[in-house]
Structures are given as C-alpha cells and as structure tokens.
C-alpha cells in the first residue's frame, strides 16, 4: 500500500500550460460566433418620439421588434424613400408579420407566451397609414400586447 502511494507522489505529471491561451481563444471565437450580439442592423431610420407615461420592458427574450421608418441613405436605391417596415434584419411587407411573430413565438416556452410583447419602434415623422396597417395585422395575428417605443421626456 505504501509502495503505491509513494510511487504516485513521486511521478506527479507536469501539465504544460503553454496551450491554455489557445484553448481560451478557441472558446472565445466559439462564443463570438454563436451568440446573437444585439438587435438587427437598422435599415430604416428610426427616431422615436418623446413621451412621459413610459413603462420599462422587462424580459428581453419576450419582446420582438418591429421598425418603421424611411430607409437609410445606403438602402434608398434598393427600397426607395417611402416609410417601410423592418422585421428582424429584413425590410418586409405587412403580410410577413404573422410568420415573423410565429418564428419568435416558437422560441419562447409555452407558459411564457402570453407575455410576448411587440415593441413598435416607429419614426416620429411617419404617417399613421402604415402604422395602422401594421396594427391591424398584429390584431389579426392575435398579438395584442404592444409597446409604442418612446424616449423619456422631462416634465
């Protein structure tokens, strides 16, 4: 018994730590690729109006974002200058909303689904026509919890 113990104590292996940084970098790259960093790149210019009666949105995973505004300069040749709707990172039409909502809904666990909120980030200069179309489509899709995104304003 003592023989074994002695042997083990003697031949403790040296672990080279030279490759540790490489492993760490590998992990870093893995996470960089896998994580969704932030909201989609904005293809429309959105400057939300100011308001006072604001509610803070909790639980980011339960929120989906719809942007409405004029396409930014870079995309004007492609999408024109009329106000457009952006879902995720694509410029879309109002008919694409049900699919967009469904794609988000399946990612949320079933008991949390009633809490799903649509955050409408709409440019202040946009007219209500397109906003109304989007609202109608949201109502038709049963997405009734809506947040009109706005900036805080001092009283």
């Amino acid at each position: 018994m003592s023989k074994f113990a002695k042997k083990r104590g003697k031949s403790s292996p040296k672990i080279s730590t030279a490759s540790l940084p490489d492993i760490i970098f590998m992990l870093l790259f893995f996470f960089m690729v896998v994580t969704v960093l932030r909201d989609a790149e904005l293809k429309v210019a959105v400057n939300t109006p100011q308001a006072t009666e604001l509610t803070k949105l909790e639980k980011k995973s339960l929120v989906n974002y719809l942007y409405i505004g004029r396409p930014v300069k870079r995309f004007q040749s492609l999408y024109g200058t009329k106000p457009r709707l952006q879902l995720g990172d694509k410029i879309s039409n109002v008919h694409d909303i049900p699919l967009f909502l469904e794609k988000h809904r399946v990612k949320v666990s079933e008991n949390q689904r009633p809490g799903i909120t649509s955050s409408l980030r709409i440019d202040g200069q946009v007219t209500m026509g397109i906003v109304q179309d989007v609202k109608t489509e949201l109502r038709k899709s049963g997405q009734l919890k809506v947040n009109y995104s706005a900036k805080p304003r001092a009283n």
Partner: protein
Amino acid sequence: MARKSSKERLSNEINAGSMADIAFLLLIFFLVTTTIVEDKGILVKLPPWSEEEPDITRLKERNVFSVLVNASNQLLVRGQPMRIGELKERTKEFISNPQRREDLAETPKKAIISLKNDRGTNYKTYLEVYNELQAAYNELRNEEALKRFGKEYEFCNNQQRAAIRADIPLILSEAEPTAFGEESTE
C-alpha cells in the same frame, strides 16, 4: 531527497500567466453580450380583431369623449378644436366630472375615449395624444390611490391596483382611420 522536493514544488505551482487571458476573455464576452440600451415605451393592449366596427353611437353621448386628429395634426375634441397642451386637463375633467355636469361622464366606469385619426396624421402627434390620454388616467388613478390608500398608485400592491383599475378603467376605442390626408410617399 533534494531531487524529490524540487519535483514536488514544481507540481504544486499553477501557472498563473494565463489567468489574465481568462479574465479578459470573460470581460470581452460580457461586454459584447450585454445591451445597455433599455427599451421604454407606452404599453398598449390592442382590442381583438373583429370584422365589424365597434358601434359607439348606441352609447350615451355624454359618456363618449371623442378625439379626432386630422392629417394636418390638428385636434378636434367633442367638436371643438383644441391644443394638445389642454387635452390632459380636459380629459381628467371629463372622466372624474367633479361638478356633476350633465354633459360629462356619469361615472369614470362609463367613460369611453374614442380616438380617431387620419392615415396622414404624423405618428408623433398620434403618440403625443395617446400619451396625454394615458397621463390623464394615470393622474386620476394616482389621486384615487392617495385618497383611498394614502400612497401613490405606483407603490400600491397588486390587489389595491386592481381595485383602482376596476373603478377607473381605461376604455379607449380606436376607430378605423379616415383617409383624407396625404400619406408620406415622396
């Protein structure tokens, strides 16, 4: 004997040179994943979709507070032009009806706000109007909470809030917008 001890010392040392790397890695990871921008806004519950328009004509006229916004962003409240700045006070007066006037709401429970806009109305104006209406209700609820529970609505528990909400419900009916104005198409 001397050789053994030196070996032992070697095995007990952990190279701490890479700890900095690990720390930086975590730092970068969290820096990237956290989004600092918080989303605030006016939370609204839309009515469920139905094919037919809600009919507000069968309601008593005194209980309906109609707000119209036209394509030039002007307000018409119960047939009278109005600036947005006055809207909140007038709404509060309408809902609470402190002087028991004949032409204002019977009780806050029966008060209905009817909002109608044009397809050419600016979203900014629409949101401002909505904000003022919401503000009127929030202030009334706050006053009621102070009177009833001695604290602001914000600090009431869920049961107290529900009681106040039941007495001063926000009933806002949005009609299908008119289409007289120019939409931003240029």
